[in-house]
């Protein structure tokens, strides 16, 4: 099943994709695991899609591929590095990635996002998959020159719009074998093969749940620390996962002073 979130006159709604249509849900998948439908349907093409979740925490898991050697921080391949983006960095399909004046060189990388379905605290490995709602595509955008200069992940990758996510949450994806394609202006630029990147998503989630409590809607993204593709204003970025769909976002320069202030914590644009 593929779940989407979309803007409606009565606020954000969830639905499930059925061919070219979206069947609207009565509630959201975090409160209603049975995913009951309201009976209303909409044409998928006409729907203003939002980020498929509005998380409280965005956790990035970074594991160096085994053959990459030392990361410079004394970690080995099985060790995990955790970083975070603020929730205000989230945008949905089609919304522009706005490049801020603080940076000069920008990059993006393909990642798989795990969407949490139930609260996770001190989870045993055998129980992990019951806590996952599904998987979606994630574009990890970063100001590369800021990261190079000060090594602060939040300063470099925490800008608004730097976490495009979507278009849908696939509840049955074979995540361990997922391949995430990254396209700049339609040209293939990169592919993340989760198998080669040594991610065991279940182990990552169990690990994180013993540090911090993850809440329904939270996102855990799995990607690499290096190998960002350069992006610039005017580009269009597509992140594609078979079974999820294509997350497509244009890139523009951020304008200042005349924009509407966001009215929610994230996920609305």
């Amino acid at each position, binding site marked *: 099943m593929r779940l989407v979130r979309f803007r409606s006159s009565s606020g954000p709604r969830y639905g499930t994709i059925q061919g070219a249509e979206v069947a609207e849900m009565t509630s959201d998948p975090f409160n209603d695991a049975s995913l009951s439908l309201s009976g209303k349907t909409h044409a998928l093409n006409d729907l203003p899609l939002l980020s498929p979740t509005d998380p409280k925490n965005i956790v990035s898991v970074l594991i160096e591929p085994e053959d990459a050697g030392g990361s410079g921080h004394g970690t080995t391949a099985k060790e995990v590095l955790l970083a975070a983006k603020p929730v205000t960095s989230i945008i949905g399909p089609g919304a522009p990635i706005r490049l801020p004046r603080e940076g000069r060189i920008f990059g993006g990388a393909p990642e798989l996002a795990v969407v949490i379905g139930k609260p996770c605290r001190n989870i045993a490995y055998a129980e992990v998959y019951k806590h996952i709602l599904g998987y979606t595509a994630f574009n990890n955008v970063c100001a590369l020159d800021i990261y190079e200069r000060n090594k602060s992940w939040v300063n470099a990758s925490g800008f608004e719009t730097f976490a495009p996510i979507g278009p849908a949450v696939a509840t049955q994806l074979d995540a361990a074998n997922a391949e995430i394609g990254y396209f700049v202006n339609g040209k293939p630029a990169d592919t993340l093969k989760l198998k080669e990147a040594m991610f*065991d998503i279940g182990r990552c989630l169990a690990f994180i749940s013993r540090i911090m409590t993850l*809440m329904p809607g939270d996102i855990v993204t799995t990607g690499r620390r290096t190998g960002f593709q350069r992006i610039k204003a005017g580009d269009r970025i597509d992140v594609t996962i078979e079974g999820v769909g294509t997350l497509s976002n244009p890139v523009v320069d951020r304008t200042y002073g005349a924009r509407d202030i966001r009215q929610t914590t994230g996920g609305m644009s």
Partner: protein
Amino acid sequence: MKIARFWTSRGPRYGIVRHDEVIELRASPFVNRDLDPWGPRYRLGELRLLAPTEPSKIILGSRNYRTMLKNRGWAEPGEVMFGLKPLGALAGPDEPILLPPGGGSYTFECELAVVIGRTCAEVSEADVDKYVLGYTCFNDSQVFDIYDKTTLTYHSKGYDSFAPVGPVIQTEMDPNDVRIKAYVNGRLSADTHTSDMIFNPAKLVSTVSHMMTLFPGDIIATGNSGGKLPIKPGDHIDIEIDHIGTLSNPVAARIYPKNAPHEGTAISTI
């Protein structure tokens, strides 16, 4: 004015603290800025205080005190540096800080924190006051070994209960001229002053507001002022800031189920 959040039989409520009395507010100070104290009244000593805010983000300013940087032999950064804590790290006054097993050393830092009152973005330094509700004490706890190994703070500082805040939000004070003191088991362990900051709270809020929209309740901790102070289970920490009061938290060991052990920095092979 001092704003507290506390538990009642009707759920959590906000109130104004006057001496040893608390008067309940009609609405959350993040919804209604008029701070209308309409009753009921409570004795402060009988209330279970909660973290005085419900943030959407916990933002950490870092490398922001000259003396701390000098003591560690670090250069002053030419720019404001930020980190984040997960929301589950938030804890209230008197809630235990739970240390996971396996760490060789654990530390905390005593900090002044800004609490945002109104939604804002792209705020100039001169306008910051319009969007700030007030200031509170912040305890930035950490598993030091994990920080030492990874240099990324989201893991080492992100454990549940590692961000105690409180006891109240002080809405009327000059954050650039207050003393911050920390006590471990009643013994003075740090004694610093916010005039030692490189980037003052207005500068921190203005800078971060250009990166991310700030929402009512958001916390911006202004950085480690007194060094990383060692703690262990059984300790009791007090952070005292002029005009705000004292944030007190016991330290205890976090207990894990047998089938979900704490794994430090490395994923086990199961």
